[in-house]
């Protein structure tokens, strides 16, 4: 493994060795054992591999791992904790927004990035934010409802 890459992963510093043609999603799953991020199309079309790079959603399949040197990566494992779900995760559970669940990690991270930037999004903004995340089960209606509900819940928390 010729290249050593150091970055922050879910808040913790990590260093790992990679080949220059290995994608970030592959390195996360196969070298670092974080299986939450999914590999779908591998061509940037489906959004299952979405991770946050310096707070912005990107396709982990299109990003070579060697290029995240010095940067901040957040995966679904960094969003909530077992027993203490992120409000978005709780809203997805409450609204039945996940069926097979394969799109869930990417969908949740796209939604988290949206709410960080725009805490009170309109439905149109929610749909725009998840346009790069394909869901083959839900028809998106419950996902959109869950994200809007989470925004409300988080606003309530902030006020309290």
């Amino acid at each position, binding site marked *: 493994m010729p290249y050593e890459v150091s970055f922050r992963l879910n808040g913790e510093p990590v260093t790992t060795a990679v080949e220059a043609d290995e994608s970030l999603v592959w390195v996360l799953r196969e070298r670092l054992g974080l299986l939450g991020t999914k590999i779908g199309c591998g061509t940037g079309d489906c959004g299952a591999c979405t991770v946050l790079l310096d707070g912005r959603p990107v396709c982990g*399949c299109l990003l070579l791992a060697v290029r995240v040197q010095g940067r901040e990566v957040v995966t679904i494992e960094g969003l909530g904790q077992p027993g203490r779900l992120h409000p978005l995760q709780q809203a997805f559970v409450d609204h039945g927004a996940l069926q097979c669940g394969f799109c869930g990690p990417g969908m949740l991270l*796209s939604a988290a990035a949206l709410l960080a930037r725009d805490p009170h999004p309109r439905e149109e903004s929610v749909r725009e*934010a998840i346009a790069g995340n394909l869901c083959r089960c839900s028809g998106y209606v419950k996902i959109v409802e869950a994200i809007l509900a989470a925004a409300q819940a988080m606003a309530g928390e902030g006020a309290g």
Partner: protein
Amino acid sequence: MKPPRYFAASTVAEASDILTAEEGAYVIAGGTDLVVRMRDGLIRPAVLVDIQRIPDLAAVGGGDGHLRIGATVTIAALLESVQVRHLAPLLAEAAAQMGAVQLRNLATVGGNLASAVPSADLAPPLIVLGAVARIAAAAGERTLPVEEFFVGPHRSALRRGEILTAVEVPLSGEGSGAAFAKFGRRSAQVLAVVNAAAWVRLRQGVVEDVRIALGAVAPTPLRVRAAEDLLRGRPPDPRHLDEAATAAVRETKPISDMRASADFRRHLSRVLVRRALERAVGRAREMEQTHAL
């Protein structure tokens, strides 16, 4: 197969030196096209030269009657830039229809051109705005109109050792307006089946100047001059816009592929040129009125 070597350049000169010295060296910016082509085995780079850590290339800046957009400015940054929205709103309009969030955060302005895909969404807008590509090499710098930057599918005018560093967009004068129109199979993440851009300048109710360009209907993005000639000096009424749109179709050379048939692309060319022209004329009229007030 041997994986490529990777080099993160810190200056353009350094990147250019490696590209000149090494066989099979490729520039990587956003990587959204390159990484997929690597995975599909269409290209086998020996060296990847990462230009995204070169600070000068990531800036948007004004000056001297033009707006300069660095090659590694992402589509997201283009969309968010206040300068772009004010000085070249056509580019923001196109950026809003490119990819989805995850791609816009990676893909770059320079990559959209340098990949030389016939459907590149920024090509028709940059062509109708009269933008110029800045190209650097160890030997020095040269410029080339974006219109001449495309040579064929996946072939740009870049020579070995050269790097696209920026595009410069001349600021449009009073009474001008521009618009972008695209058709794809899904609203996000798709290559355009056809895209089109139009720029017009009106003077006393007549088209003083006009530029029209189409993408994905020929081996390179295409400027349709015969259609432009039909409009110059005429009032931009529905009949003349129709005639120009029909003339534009005659200049296209579309292919049939998995995304659409040649016939459908011809149909779309007419519809999208008509639509882009109508919106561009409307915006030019608004500009005229704003200035008259």
